[in-house]
């Protein structure tokens, strides 16, 4: 006979305001099997937990139900307390009478009746709970970092410096990401490449880091501590081991007019190229779409001029499988653009700004490339249309961001600061020019940030206009900016030479597809979701996967680096132990009843089901049954719902437990 203890939490007044907790305790106390029931102001507090522990020992309780908040909140807390009192933690269940009851109902009578029933259901369930021993699994102490921008680089260096191997995978031919494209950085105006490139070189030289550039994640299998990652190393057409990075191939390539994505298509590159001079690795890649050799079979000049014979037209994509124990996702961001979007898409473009067809209306990243000393203009601010220096330049903030109508409601967080920076860079480079900024709010929280913004106005003479722009149109070689100043309450018209749009920060294209491979969740914009907004901001809900940088939400460089180091710390914590304890919520096969139809194996997404031969003492095969590898099992229970004779059961969610709950209704 079970001796169940039921503990009803008031949650201050959060529960007791709408649920008569004393009555719940009283009524539940009468249920068969309930030996003890009580209520308390804060069950999760220290005295609350002590009350629980004391009751278990004094009342010799066999099972515990805590009726309080959502189990997603405190199940761990109470199971730990129960364990401390000497009971198996899985003999404790929580009844959710806060999120699912007191907070969503107002009528006290109704809410109380519902609470009694919810607790009653959990009482019946807990009776069927079994002692579950904790499962331990080995940990592979290598980690995968996806994305070679500043977030991925920082995380990789931190983990590698702690002595663990790191696999760093980057989609582009070089690591560096967006930070490598920036000219100067706020709020100190130090040169981005000066602080970035040494880190890139560190990555290349680190003995513990294995770098895969021009590579993508193909498949992720396994689970925390034991992932198997398949990486597609795209054909570079240049052998990385042989190439010395001399650059002769690039000099000789006859195709020279391909817009360089790294320079926001302002500069040109050959068909065999490195995206920028400081690229890591400094190994060129052939852009097969534009290469004459690949298009027509003729040419082959680069191969002829290559001394070490590194150019290899036959190279194919390679699939590499790497076992890792933890994954850091650092895929970063992309910039929204104002071009016309397909009909029906959630995101819209800016027709009122000409859908990106006015040549001298550019985005912030393009301005960075113009301002960068290593950029296509050598650091001169020149108009893309005619190469003239713009004397009147207009910056417009919140393009795409905070624009529900365009499909994006969030604030992109970095634009206020980088626009302030742009006005300064402009003022430093075009002394007789004037910068104007249309803005709604200046959001400058951060160390020395607001001072920086004020400096752009007070010292660098940028004219800030509080108001938005309704329309942009080309008039002769000017761009007419139709805006308003809401402080004055008048319309403002500026004939600008150039307009820079602070476009929104969006997740990388394909972020959702990668998330699906990883089995992590993402929001409607495709930003990856952290496990808890405040308390677990760098972990995914999927164990063993961590987030760093703008793939999780818009971030500036200091925030990104902090989060990357935090993710690295999480990985190191995981790697600090040789074995990992995991929740024993896994499927088990009742071999006696299994007839070996392997429906379970067919539906298992983890490949956890194996075939196992049962033999008699003489070694004769009796039958082949299913076996679930507890280390691999994800614990979804799809196998159990599929098994016709229910000979595979998911611990913690057995049919007995569930039927008991249904019958309690």
């Amino acid at each position, binding site marked *: 006979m079970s001796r169940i203890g039921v503990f009803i939490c008031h949650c201050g007044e959060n529960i007791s305001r709408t649920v008569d907790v004393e009555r719940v305790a009283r009524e539940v106390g009468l249920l068969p099997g309930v030996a003890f029931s009580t209520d308390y102001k804060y069950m999760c507090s220290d005295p609350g937990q002590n009350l629980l522990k004391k009751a278990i020992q004094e009342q010799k309780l066999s099972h515990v139900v805590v009726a309080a908040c959502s189990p997603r909140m405190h199940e761990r807390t109470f199971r730990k307390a129960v364990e401390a009192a000497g009971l198996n933690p899985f003999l404790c269940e929580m009844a959710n009478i806060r999120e699912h009851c007191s907070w969503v109902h107002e009528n006290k009578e109704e809410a109380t009746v519902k609470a009694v029933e919810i607790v009653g259901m959990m009482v019946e369930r807990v009776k069927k709970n079994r002692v579950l021993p904790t499962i331990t699994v080995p940990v592979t102490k290598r980690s995968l970092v996806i994305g070679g921008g500043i977030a991925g680089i920082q995380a990789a260096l931190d983990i590698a410096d702690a002595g663990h191997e790191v696999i760093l995978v980057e989609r582009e031919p070089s690591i560096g990401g967006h930070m490598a494209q920036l000219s100067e950085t706020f709020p100190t105006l130090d040169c981005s490449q000066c602080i970035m490139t040494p880190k890139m070189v560190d990555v290349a030289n680190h003995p513990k880091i294995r770098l895969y550039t021009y590579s993508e994640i193909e498949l992720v299998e396994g689970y925390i501590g034991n992932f198997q990652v398949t990486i597609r190393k795209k054909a570079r057409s240049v052998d990385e081991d042989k190439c010395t990075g001399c650059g002769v191939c690039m000099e000789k390539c006859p195709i020279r007019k391909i817009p360089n994505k790294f320079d926001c298509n302002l500069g040109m590159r050959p068909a065999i190229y490195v995206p920028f001079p400081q690229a890591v690795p400094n190994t060129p890649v052939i852009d097969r779409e534009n290469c004459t050799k690949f298009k027509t079979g003729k040419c082959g000049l680069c191969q002829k001029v290559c001394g070490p014979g590194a150019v290899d037209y036959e190279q194919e994509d390679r699939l590499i499988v790497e076992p890792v124990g933890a994954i850091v996702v650092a895929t970063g961001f992309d910039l929204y653009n104002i071009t016309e979007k397909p009909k029906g898409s959630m995101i819209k473009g800016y027709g009122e700004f000409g859908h990106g067809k006015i040549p001298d209306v550019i985005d912030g990243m393009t301005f960075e490339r113009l301002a960068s000393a290593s950029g296509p203009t050598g650091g001169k601010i020149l108009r893309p249309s005619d190469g003239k220096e713009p004397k009147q330049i207009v910056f417009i903030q919140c393009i795409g961001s905070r624009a529900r109508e365009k499909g994006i409601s969030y604030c992109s967080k970095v634009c206020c600061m980088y626009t302030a920076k742009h006005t300064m860079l402009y003022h430093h480079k075009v002394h007789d020019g004037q910068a104007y900024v249309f803005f709604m709010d200046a959001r400058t929280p951060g160390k020395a940030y607001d001072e920086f913004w004020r400096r752009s106005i007070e010292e660098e003479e940028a004219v800030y206009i509080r108001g938005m722009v309704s329309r942009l149109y080309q008039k002769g070689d000017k761009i007419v900016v139709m805006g308003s100043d809401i402080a004055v309450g008048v319309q403002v018209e500026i004939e600008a030479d150039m307009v820079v749009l602070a476009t929104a920060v969006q997740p990388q294209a394909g972020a959702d597809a990668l998330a699906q491979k990883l089995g992590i969740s993402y929001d409607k914009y495709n930003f990856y979701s952290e496990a808890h907004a405040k308390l677990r901001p760098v972990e995914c809900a999927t164990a063993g996967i961590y987030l760093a940088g703008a793939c999780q939400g818009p971030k500036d460089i200091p925030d990104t680096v902090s989060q990357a180091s935090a993710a690295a710390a999480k990985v190191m914590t995981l790697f600090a132990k040789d074995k990992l304890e995991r929740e024993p919520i896994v499927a088990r096969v009742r071999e006696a009843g299994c007839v070996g139809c392997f429906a379970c194996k067919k539906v298992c997404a983890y490949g956890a089901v194996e075939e196992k031969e049962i033999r008699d003492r003489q070694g004769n095969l009796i039958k082949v049954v299913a076996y679930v590898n507890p280390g691999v099992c994800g*614990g979804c229970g799809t196998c159990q719902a599929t098994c016709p004779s229910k000979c595979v059961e998911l611990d913690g969610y057995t049919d007995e437990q569930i039927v008991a709950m249904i019958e309690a209704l």
Partner: protein
Amino acid sequence: MHPEKQKHTFEPKIIAFVCTWCTYAGADLAGTSRMQYPPNVRVLKFPCTGRIDPVFILKAFQQGADGVLVSGCHPGDCHYIAGNFHARRRFAVFRKLLEFVGVDLNRLQFSWVSAAEGGKWVEVVTDLTEKVRAMGPMTEFRELALEEQWSGAINTPELEEAYNQI
């Protein structure tokens, strides 16, 4: 300011089978956002919709549920990779079976509710509750449970007396 609460004569029992990662979390969000919905629903938490056996739905109706809701993660969002895809097929077929034996499918609702969709949870639960309330109690299985073999008509006074004494 709240509208005057309406009194109903029939309060349906709704059972919701939900996955813990999306819909349960969505229902939690409805709670943390203090949204309001009818108290008729009882939530049973599963790790994944893939774990939900059609037999549970049958069992729920037999145990007196007037409506059943099955809800999990949106396609592609399954915490367990593909549990919801398997569930989708399983329930697509099962509901056709129930329909064929004469269960009104208005009593059986399936939905995708993500952890971010507290509002959708409220909407789904409210809609189902109101729909089932309008339909009245689910009597089919309940009547069946009271019946004996051969339609269970107790047609003689002796039988009736014997029955009453049980």
